[in-house]
Structure formats: C-alpha cells, structure tokens
C-alpha cells in the first residue's frame, strides 16, 4: 500500500560509462564538483590536524582579549574567553565531522536493516516496525537525548549513536519504501525463479539498487546530524568544554551575536561549506551510480 517508488536524487542526466568497475571510482573522482568538494573537506581536515601547532592553542585563554574582531593575530577573532576562533573552528572540525560521519553511517546501517526487515517480512512485522519508527519520530528529541545521557553517560560515542539513532527512523521509512518498490519489480520475481536465496536477493540485489535513495537520505542526514549534535549538547549530551563542535560554537556564538558578529558567523560559514561539500559528494556519487537506473 505504501509502495512509492523511492526518489533518486539526480542533478543532471548521467553520461554513459564505457565500462564498470574501477573506472567508476576514477570517473567519480574526476568530476569537477567532486574535486571542489574534496578540496574543501581536505582543507578542513588539514586545518583540524595542524591547527594546534600552526595556530594558537584552541584552549589558550586570554580573558581581557575576548570578543576580538578578526585581526592578524586572530584571523577569525576570539570567543568569550579570548580563545582563538580559527583554531577552535579548525579543531572542532574533528568532532563535528567525526560525529556527522559516524552518526550518518550508523543511521544508514540501522535504518536500512530496519526498513528492509519491514519491507521483506511484510504483514505484522512491517506494521510494528513502521509504527515504531513513527512513534520514534513523534517522541521529542530532547527526551530521547536525556534518556540516553541517563542510560549511557554523555560521551562522544553515545552522542554519535544517539544522533544516528534519531535519524534512523526516517531512514528506515525511506529504506522501506525503496525496498518495497524494488521487491514489487519483475526482476525480483526473476531472481526468485532462478532460485537465489532470499537473503542474497535482499542484500546482493535489492540493497545496491536502493543505494541512490539511501545515499540521498544520508546526505540529508549529514546536514541534520551537525544541527542535532548542537541540540543535544544543549541538554548536556556529548561535547563538553573545553572541547567544542561547530554546532556548539554556533550556538554559543549566536548568544554573543551583539558582542561579536564574527563569533557565530565563522562557524556558520564553515558548517554551510562543509555540509555543502559533503552533500555534493553524496549527490555526485548518486549521479555516477544512477547511470544504470531505468
């Protein structure tokens, strides 16, 4: 009943490949948007790694010099404790990118298995699994976060897992409808007739076909996870001082908007840049994969 063919995000009609295999990766990596995105991510990663040595320490206090605007000494300005914003933004990238990746992967794995189980088993199993996902989406995020802090403590792993978990509900729903419409298609009938085991059909044939929709959802998830992580820090989950993530920096900066416009602006710019880059990587991968879609 809910069989909607899953959307496959596509920015432009793909060109046809000469061949598959390793050529795929090469073709992907030579696309101009991919190169641009990789450069952005590369710069962020390099900054995260070398920032503490080249720039100021991200935790060095200088209270009298707080809320300084950008200058030679502090290219991004300073925060409420006079710490260098550039090195903090660079350093926060480690956490933010790590959490975003981890959570997105977790959401993708959990959501896919979840949605696939629902679609493949059908009937009551489907009903129950999907209703759970819906209920999960209806329960306030903050409540979930508090439960997780109470149950598993407030460390980064818990943070990553809960962020992923929160995103897995929607992912499961998307995965289910993608798998369902694949299962309805004639080729699955063909594979059954050939005698391919059910599990192999699901994981070997159907799953790769739903990859474009799942990738699409994942690139949305990447963006969501950065924001979600900031929200969760709000209830004390995850990033604790003096560490910082882009989300928490944006939040702190926003509350000091009138002291220093640079404080929220810089993390905001980096967030938009990073997410745009990650999204580009995702959608380009789809374009490359989509070439064989009907």
């Amino acid at each position, binding site marked *: 009943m809910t069989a909607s063919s899953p959307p496959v995000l596509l920015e432009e009609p793909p060109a046809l490949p000469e061949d598959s295999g390793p050529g795929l990766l090469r073709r992907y990596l030579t696309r101009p948007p991919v190169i641009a995105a990789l450069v952005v991510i590369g710069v962020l990663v390099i900054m995260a790694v070398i920032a503490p040595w080249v720039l100021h320490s991200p935790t060095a*206090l200088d*209270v009298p010099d707080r809320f300084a605007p950008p200058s030679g000494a502090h290219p991004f300005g300073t925060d409420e404790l006079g710490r260098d914003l550039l090195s903090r933004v660079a350093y926060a990238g480690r956490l933010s990118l790590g959490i975003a990746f981890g959570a997105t992967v977790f959401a993708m794995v959990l959501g896919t298995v979840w949605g696939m189980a629902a679609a493949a088993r059908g009937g009551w199993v489907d009903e129950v699994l999907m209703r759970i996902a819906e209920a999960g989406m209806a329960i306030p995020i903050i409540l979930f976060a508090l439960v997780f802090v109470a149950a598993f403590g407030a460390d980064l792993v818990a943070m990553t897992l809960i962020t992923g978990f929160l995103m897995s509900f929607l992912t499961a729903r998307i995965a289910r409808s993608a798998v369902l419409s694949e299962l309805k298609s004639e080729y699955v009938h063909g594979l059954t007739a050939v005698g391919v085991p059910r599990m192999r059909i699901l994981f070997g044939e159907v799953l790769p076909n739903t990859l474009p929709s799942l990738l699409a959802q994942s690139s949305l998830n990447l963006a969501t996870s950065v924001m979600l992580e900031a929200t969760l820090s709000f*209830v004390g989950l995850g990033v*604790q*001082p003096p560490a910082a993530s882009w989300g928490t920096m944006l939040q702190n900066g926003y*509350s*000091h*908007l*009138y002291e220093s416009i640079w404080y929220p602006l810089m993390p905001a710019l980096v967030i938009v840049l990073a997410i745009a880059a990650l999204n580009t990587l995702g959608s380009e991968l789809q374009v490359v994969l989509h070439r064989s879609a009907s």
Partner: protein
Amino acid sequence: GGGGGAGSGQQPLKPAADSGSGAMKDGGTLVYGQTAGVSQLDPNVISSGAQTMLQTLLWNGLTKINPDDSVGPDLATSWQSTPDYLHWTFHLHPGVTYHNGRAFTATDAAQNIERVLNPTTGSQTRPRIEMINTVTATDPNTLAIDLKTPNPQLPLALVNVKMTDVADIANVSKDANGTGPYKLRAFTPDQTVDLVRNGNYFGAKPHFDEIKVVRYADSTAAETALRSGSINVLWSVAPTSAAGLAADGRKLLAATDPASAFVWELDTTSPPFNNPKARLALSYAADRVSMMQAGYAGFGVTGTSDEIVSPSNKYYNKSLPTDAYDLNKAKELFAEAGVHSGDTLTYWTTSGSYTEWTTMGEILQQSLGQIGIKLNIQANEIATWSAKTYPKGKKYPGLIAANYISLAPPLPNTYPLEWFSSSGTCECNWVPPARYDADEQTIEQQGDGPARTAAFDEMQQILHDQAPVIVIGNTSFLSVVGADVRGVWVESEGTLHLEDAGFAA
C-alpha cells in the same frame, strides 16, 4: 554603584539601582521581556526567579521592602511588638478588596501565613517565619502573631508572605486573585502573562494600563527585541551584553548591595571535600578576577573570601583575610587533603541556561590543569543538574556544583547566614560548629547592637575558615530599562519592582 570589586574597577559603565524619578503619566502598555518563562503564579511557592516581579504587581504582603532594604507598610498600616519580640500585632488597611471584589480581612492574612507555615505547602518563605507559633485574626483589621522564639525582624520576614485567596488557591494560576495594583487578564504558562490595572487598588493609582510579560527563547532574541523597541524592560540580561544594551538612553539596573552570589557547592560530608583543606584549596585555585570578568563582565563584587556576605555590605567582616588566587597554596592544600596530581574532579553545571557558569568552569579547568588536576566539565540540562544536589542531604563526592544563590534581603537580615546553620537548607550538607548555631540564635533574638555585630563577625569568620561553599562573587541580575520608563527599582537579588513605575510624562 556596584561596590568595590576588582572587576568593576575596569568597568566604565555603572549600573543604577533605579530608572530615575520624575513626572509620570498614566496609561500605556509596558512590555517586560525575559528569557525564562513564568510557569505558575502562586506567590508563596515560587518556581523560579522569573516570576518574582509579579510578587508586587499582583500581590501585597502585610509589609513590603523598600529600595533601601528597609521594611515599610503594605497591607498592614502599622505594627507593634512586645519588647521581648514574642507577641506582635498588625493593623490592616481597611477596605481592601481582592481583584474579584471580595473584601480582604485579617482572617485571610492569617490563612496565608498558616499556609506558608505548613511544611507540605513547600513555601520558600517558611524558614524565615518558622518561629511563628500562632496567628489570630482578632478583628477584621487586626492580626495577632505569637512567636516561639523572639524575632525582632518579623516584619521583614513577612514581606514575602503574599496575600492570596487561600480558599481558591487551586486556581491561583487561573485568576491570581490578589489585592495588588495589577490584575491578571491572561496567562499562558511559560509564554506570556498579561496584566491590567486594578481600578480598585487601595494604594496609589497604578500608572500603566497594561503590563505584558513576554518570554523570549534566548538572550539574542530578547536583545534584538529590546533594541528594536518592542519591549520596554529586559530582565536578567546576559552580563556580557549588558554594556552594549545600555545605549540609546536605555539604563542598566542592578542592585547596589547584591544579595545573590555565584558559588560552588561541595558535599562537605563526602571525600575529598569533607576535608576543609580541600575546600580551601579549591578556593585558592579560583581565579576570581578572571572569572568575574569573563562570566559577569565585571558587573558584581568579586569575592575575596568564601562567605556569602558581599564585601559591599555594611556588616561585612572587614577583618577577614583576602584569599587571593594562589595555585601553589592550592596544590599544597589539595595534597594534604589527598587530592593529587592526576586526580579528576567534576564540575557540575547547566547547559543551555547560565552559560557563564560553564565559562567560569573553563577558567578553573585551566588553573587546575596547571597543578595536574583534571577537571571534567559536565553540563546538564537544568532538572538533571538540580537533582544532583537538591534538596539538602544528597551525596555528591568529588563534585563541584556551580550554583547561583539568592539570599535576600542582605544583612542585617539573618537569613543569608541562617541558611548554613543546622536548621538551614544549604545543599552543602555542612554541619556548622556549635558556635555558629549559637551566634545565629543571638542574632535572631536580639535587636541591633554590639552583640549582634559580634555574632555576625564570628559567623563570617567561621564561614571563611570552613568554606562550606566557595563564593566566586556577589552579583544580582542585571536589567535594562527603556529611556522613557520611570520608577523601576531593583531589589537586592535583582528582582525588578514595577508597581510604582510608569512612562515619563
């Protein structure tokens, strides 16, 4: 002026205690903004500081507090006591009616006091008037109060017993049936409170037609609203933005003698802080000047020793030594108390609100790091935060709990010191020496005089030596008031008094 703290020396902007006097006109709507929501309206069982400005708008007490922290008549026009301060008589203002038209009588007053005294009510005012034995309405306008132990300061203690409609207390948030100058028109919990002028007010005619209390999501949103002129008063502004907001004729208000303090509470019954040396060590490790600078932008009185009385207070024990920031001493004392390099302590603070506590924690984190002690900052959502230490009696070893306590009004009111006594409710679980409790008795039962002063001094000395809580500085909430608002004044812990305010004529 905000007293002689080190921080305020660098601060060019001095907050005022009131928004100025001058001719006021009648009429207009005052919009009052704050970032915390009013969740209920019972004035005798307060839920948060966000509702305290309503105490004098919707309600009256028998007495009220004046801008100089003295006591004045409110519903009671006059009062007397026997010389032993055990028997009191209050004469009530005749002809006062509740908002719903019902007459207010001494019986109502008695019922309210009894309600506050009832431990199950949970009134924060109860510890201050616990010594009351009986309350009797001798006639509709006369109230007799008998005490168990003498209390010369009963009128002050009664300020916060607000006169509600006890029979209908279940609906207090619905109709807020009080006697105050404004009455309730609409209330959306945690969002808005709409007040309109009480035309039958027994006192001077209130100036505003309407007062709207609006809750803002965050300080930036509230500040934007203030700058755009859509609100007239903003209460509890973030200290770091205060200076920027006090422009375009807007005035920054703060208490002259702040009765609130930013403190670190410690469980004095669990290691390591059951050892006073560990507590003192922590005190030495606190770079109070930087903290007050970063956390409160210098608005406030930087603490010099670990006692709650502000150095700006007249009764402050000036003979106390100043415990300056000294990491060597801290390290030494920590070692003696068994806290060594490589050990870990936890800083328990809130997330989302009061971010300045975290800011100050980060400074402590740096300092302790220099002597090899690791400080884990754990920011929690507010209810999780409070459940760790509240109420008195909880165990929290190794935890430094950031808190902001308001013990108003300041000395000579005894409550700030009483809070630490055996019968007080300090979450530090501190058991004071016998001398401390004895001094408390002395103060409570005697009027002004050398005995009382001596007791004040000794109690402060004990607090300083034992450091049951670490006091970083005394502050009060900061508020910003529009240029055309007059007659607003700040109580010692930062509550704004709007009852006599109006727009400039």
